[in-house]
């Protein structure tokens, strides 16, 4: 059964799914549209909600980046070993999405003065709150290991890795005071299939 992932030619909301495919060593068709292209306009109407990412699998088109990623993680046993572990993983992913939702307006602000102001507030006040929450959950659920849940790699770790990559583009020092989180990132990067993927992936935003 083949997988097709439709998205733009960026990391954005599809990259977590691409990381999951990589960690699982699973092939997939990595379809990338250039934004504002004729090709995208042509395909937009084929997508259930007129949006991407969309996963095509077994004749089904699935929208919504989180739903896609969770489906793939479950397919490849990267979601947590039972319902309760999966809930722990989900709670970390939800907390990460809360963080990204707070970051997006900062990143998208065009006015330079306003952007500096928003960034300062985000990095001084908002981000530390979320990082503290993530360390709390990691320490609660990790069973003493370096991964967020149950002492093995899950999509919680991949989502954290991906979102911090994004935030690092604005401030590469933001994890300096969070040794547990830094160590978690290091563990993810060390995984051979992930390391290989990171080395070879297209250089895009």
């Amino acid at each position, binding site marked *: 059964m083949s997988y097709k992932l439709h998205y733009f030619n960026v990391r954005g909301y599809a990259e977590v799914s691409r990381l999951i495919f990589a960690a699982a060593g699973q092939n997939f068709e990595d379809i990338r549209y250039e934004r504002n292209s004729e090709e995208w306009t042509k395909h937009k109407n084929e997508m259930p909600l007129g949006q991407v990412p969309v996963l095509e699998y077994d004749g089904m088109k699935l929208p919504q980046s989180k739903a896609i990623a969770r489906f793939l993680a479950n397919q490849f046993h990267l979601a947590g070993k039972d*319902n309760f572990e999966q809930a722990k993983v989900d709670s970390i992913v939800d907390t990460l999405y809360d963080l990204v939702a707070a970051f997006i307006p900062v990143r998208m602000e065009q006015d330079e003065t306003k952007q500096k102001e928003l960034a300062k507030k985000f990095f001084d006040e908002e981000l530390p709150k979320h990082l503290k929450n993530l360390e709390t959950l990691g320490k609660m659920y990790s069973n003493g290991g370096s991964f967020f849940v149950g002492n093995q790699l899950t999509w919680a770790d991949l989502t954290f890795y991906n979102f911090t990559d994004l935030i690092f583009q604005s401030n590469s020092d933001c994890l300096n005071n969070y040794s547990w989180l830094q160590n978690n990132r290091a563990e993810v990067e060390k995984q051979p299939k992930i390391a290989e993927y990171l080395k070879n992936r297209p250089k895009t935003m």
Partner: protein
Amino acid sequence: MPTYKLYYFYGRGRAEIARLIFAAAGETYEDIRYEREEWPSHKSEMPLGQMPVLEVDGVKIPQSMTIARFLSKQFKLAGKDNLEQAKVDAVVDTSIDLAVKYVPLLMQQDESKKKEEIAKFFTDELPKHMKNFETLGKLYGDGSQFFVGNHLTFADLEVYDMLSYVVKIDDKFLQSYPWLERNRQEVEKNSKIAEYIKNRKETPF
């Protein structure tokens, strides 16, 4: 049999979806509700200093959608396999997309501004979300009135809960969306849900 405790405020808000799932499943739980004044003394007991939180055999899980998904999987209201669960998740994520835009308008303190903003939202923004729901319901519902696969799932309950906030403002709004109207009626026909709604106390939110 695990014991469940649900912690929240005296209101529907972000906990109601979990309560609807417990009700639909006919499962018991301790429905703990804190008054606003007593919440500060309990805040540090919650992993992220927020509610809702679900405690399962003494272990706490934060994040409202994670809680709801966990419970729906426990009680077989999540979709019968990974593919169905992914479709359910896509519908739920689409409901969250609406919540993120709509709920802040409901929290506006200035009454006349609130009325104006909501009216504008109903005209300019809400139809798009309704159309998205109907698209997914028709795509995944297997010709039934349920969102996914011909039976009640977390998707139906989440959209039911979300659209309660629409119907409350304009009880005729769904008439323009017959599929959604029938889906809502289908949920209300469920005897356990009907019983729960009948006995549910009116709360400020």
